[in-house]
């Protein structure tokens, strides 16, 4: 139970630090808003886009691509931001499981908040064509949780390897592609307002992937942090 209390304290510290500077949150939010705005302007250069036949497909895919890049940017900060001496201090006072667990929970919270805001901003600019908004919202939440769990572990690996940004993208994209394919397929069903029952299998797989990734992170992270 010591791990849980350590996790609680570390999580509190993460949130407190973020609350003081609001750097990661504001930075990524601005990133999302400007990306959405650029897309909005660029797509509306061609007249009649919003009424064209492919609009719903583009709407869905574009949203997930924006989310993917926002997630890479937000999550890569989680380990790269920490200075070496501060990491050393954590390791001397807490167990590695508590460290990775607190980072994962913090990233899940951050990503969920960001994705909800991103969805709102996105729907403001791009005309809403959702058939089943509540289910779409649930899929977006599940997607942000999946992004957070996968990217936390990858960013730990990338930060250890030394050169952050490039490596983060190279390592994470092959891992995240199956997740994002499942998400796009599921959210398309929610968007068209089709029957939910046909996608429960996909939701199950996504949850299973999350459980496996968190489990793997808990087992593998202790080997990663010791130098």
């Amino acid at each position: 139970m010591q791990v849980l209390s350590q996790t609680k304290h570390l999580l509190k510290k993460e949130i407190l630090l973020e609350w003081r500077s609001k750097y990661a949150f504001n930075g990524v939010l601005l990133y999302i808003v400007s990306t959405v705005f650029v897309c909005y302007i660029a797509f509306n250069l061609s007249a009649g886009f919003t009424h064209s036949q492919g609009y719903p497909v583009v709407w869905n895919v574009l949203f997930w691509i924006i989310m993917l890049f926002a997630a890479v940017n937000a999550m890569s900060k989680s380990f790269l931001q920490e200075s070496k001496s501060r990491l050393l201090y954590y390791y001397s006072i807490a167990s590695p499981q508590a460290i990775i667990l607190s980072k994962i929970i913090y990233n899940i919270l951050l990503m969920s908040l960001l994705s909800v805001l991103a969805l709102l901003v996105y729907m403001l600019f791009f005309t809403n064509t959702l058939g089943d908004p509540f289910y779409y919202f649930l899929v977006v939440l599940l997607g942000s949780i999946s992004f957070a769990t996968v990217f936390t572990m990858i960013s730990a690996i990338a930060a250890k390897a030394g050169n952050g940004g490039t490596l983060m993208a190279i390592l994470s994209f092959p891992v995240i592609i199956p997740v994002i394919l499942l998400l796009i397929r599921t959210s398309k069903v929610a968007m068209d307002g089709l029957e939910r029952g046909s996608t429960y299998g996909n939701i199950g797989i996504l949850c299973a992937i999350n459980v496996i990734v968190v489990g793997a992170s808990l087992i593998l992270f202790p080997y990663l942090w010791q130098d």
Partner: protein
Amino acid sequence: MKFIYQTWWKVLTVLVILYTLFAGLLLGVPRLPIMHETIRNVYFHVPMWMAMFTVFTISVVYSIKYLISGKPEHDLVAVECANTGVFFFVVGLVTGMMWAKYTWGEYWSNDPKQNSAAIAFLLYCAYLVLRNSIDEEQKRAKISAVYNIFAFPVMVVLIMILPRMTDSLHPGNGGNPAFGKLDLDNRMRVVLYPAFIAWCFMGVWIASIRYRISLIEYKKNAID
């Protein structure tokens, strides 16, 4: 490890592979619509993936062993197996693409199986890039072992599970019959199964030679 250094299974492997090369091209095959003679590709395409899975499995086992023991030899086995696996990956993709040209009409036809195989290929390329990006030997071994263990299940999901859930044209996926169920008759079995086993051992042999070369290099560079 004694087994690796013995000769008999290597001779046997070469003989069986030679047998499957000739028998695969000469023996009779069932005549199926669209497939016709291209069904012979199953002797050369599927064993590549079998060999790849064998060496990647050995690689991940030795990555786990490295994390437990910390012996540099285990890391060498893991990386050389991954290198060999990437080679078989490329050969498997190319043989599959050649077959796809004659049956599906295009070398690359946006099929889920092809796409996820390409993604899995990126995954292992990322593993090799990750290794190159770290200079310090122990750190490199540890981080890449962690990534290797992380990547292996993703690769299995990508190649084995995801294409089965979608409408892939690939035999055995998306409701298509696999060769094993309907079309494979006994004339093909006598070639196919030996080919599976022989190519797996071929992969192990190539990986073991690469491992022994890199072990010599490692010992030469070591400071006594």
